[in-house]
């Protein structure tokens, strides 16, 4: 992907991860990730997309240095994952954030600021900034153990953002957030990206990822099915042509078989790779005697792209 010349925020080379239980047979081993290579540059948002068990969280955990790769290498801002230098550049938000029982939300933020090695005034400033940005003022002084899922997510995001890391790893960040929270999260991530942070998000909410104008990594069975930026992901489009009658005959006589996705007497669904082809196709159909009622260009959304890739990959 682009941004050549910049120091990559994440560089994964031929990553393979096999989970094997102690004393278990080799046949019981689970290969969660197979030969995955990935580069993420500053100012880039990459969305990991895949069904449960696709390897998204495993990939995030490897980048965060929580687990060791069976094969391959991971570097964060040029440093090996799990090294202290790599962690200086890292903000991590787990899927199920847990906080110490007796601490208020504010104390949790201060605690994590201290763990980052920030000075007391910096911690104070960052806590106030996070409370304001994520609108946590109403609940930040309550015990964190009593927080709802949405409040926990906001607090976890605030923790991940502390110290202005160059790389943010977010595992299902919109879980439990209300619609307003989701919009705030999206705006915040765009601001961070514009400030030069690299962001890797794992999410099942494909619609949310789509609105983030990020690049997508489609994963299935531990492999990368496709690596596509937004333009490429949306490139595959369909043309829906409504006819008065004779749709099947028109499809057989006027169009190549590979282009016809679906044909009925009153409607045709055609695959097109370039929207500029539409006038020619319509003119061709009209000249061939097709009585066209309407023409609609439908772009494949990210969900459809993912489902198509999954069906092609399995």
């Amino acid at each position: 992907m682009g941004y050549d010349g910049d120091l990559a925020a994440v560089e994964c080379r031929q990553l393979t991860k096999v989970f094997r239980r102690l004393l278990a047979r080799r046949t019981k081993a689970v290969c969660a990730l197979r030969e995955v290579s990935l580069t993420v540059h500053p100012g880039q948002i990459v969305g990991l997309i895949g069904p449960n068990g696709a390897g998204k969280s495993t990939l995030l955990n490897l980048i965060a240095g929580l687990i060791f790769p069976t094969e391959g290498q991971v570097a964060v801002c040029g440093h090996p994952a799990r090294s202290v230098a790599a962690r200086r550049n890292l903000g991590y938000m787990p899927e199920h954030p847990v906080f110490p029982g007796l601490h208020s939300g504010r104390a949790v933020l201060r605690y994590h600021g201290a763990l980052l090695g920030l000075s007391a005034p910096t911690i104070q400033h960052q806590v106030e900034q996070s409370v304001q940005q994520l609108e946590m003022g109403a609940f930040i002084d309550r015990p964190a153990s009593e927080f709802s899922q949405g409040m926990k997510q906001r607090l976890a995001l605030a923790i991940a953002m502390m110290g202005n890391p160059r790389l943010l790893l977010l595992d299902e960040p919109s879980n439990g957030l209300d619609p307003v929270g989701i919009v705030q999260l999206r705006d915040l991530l765009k601001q961070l990206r514009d400030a030069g942070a690299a962001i890797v998000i794992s999410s099942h909410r494909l619609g949310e990822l789509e609105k983030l104008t990020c690049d997508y990594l489609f994963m299935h069975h531990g492999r990368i099915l496709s690596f596509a930026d937004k333009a490429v992901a949306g490139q595959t489009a369909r043309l829906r042509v409504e006819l008065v009658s004779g749709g099947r005959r028109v499809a057989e006589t006027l169009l190549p078989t590979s282009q016809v996705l679906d044909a009925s007497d009153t409607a045709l669904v055609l695959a097109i790779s370039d929207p500029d082809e539409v006038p020619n196709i319509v003119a061709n159909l009209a000249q061939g005697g097709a009585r066209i009622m309407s023409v609609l260009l439908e772009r494949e959304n990210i969900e459809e792209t993912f489902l198509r890739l999954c069906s092609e990959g399995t």
Partner: protein
Amino acid sequence: MRAYELIKETFLRRRSIAVIHLIWLVLYGLFWWLFLPDPEEYGRFLLLWGGFLLPLALSAGILGDDIASGRICLLVTKPFWAGELYVYRLIGLSLQGAMQFLLAALLVFVLHTVTRRSSVSGLGLWLFASWLLFNTVAALSTSVSVVIRRVHNSLLLLVTFLTGATVAQILISNLSNHPLGTVVAGFFRYPFPPFELLRHLAKGDYARESLSLGGWRIPTSIACVGHSLILTVVYAGAGILLLTRRQFSGPRD
């Protein structure tokens, strides 16, 4: 700042920590009040109750709770050596032990002054020996907590110690006149938390003894303290090694 927060967390990580401290203090007072023990009896009670059971109660799930809940993932992605997490947790436990024994000493002193009953002579040495044992058991329990989830580290150690002590007692008494007896006694005495050695130290049995090491004469009491500290460091070292080499994950869906 980091050290302070990680040490403070050992006090605040569970509501039960404060309750445990309170219960233990009440029991120190009750034992004195009800049984009017002589200093040796009270010292043995301190060694067992404060030196052995207290660290097990305080260290239950000290790392295992975080590992089981997935909170450890937030801690070990921070920019510091993961071993620091272990070291500061152990220091936090050790400080809690020191605080507990100081409060126990104060309590006994007040009871003795008010009631004018029993004696407090030699109690300081018993408290010191109990704190040494506390540190050794706390280090062992914390290390076990790296690999055993939740509070099972303390339960496992309690059962293992009770079983091990019974087996050791049977073996040593049956082999008392056999050459193997010394080997078996040594096996149980040196690599495991040194109840027996510290009991002798606190009783003053080693006050006039010394060991020869090369051309040097070392007082046995100093060697006994050194042995306890070395064991603490060895147990902690094993735990740090395990912590820095293990993998972590959050709870599964």
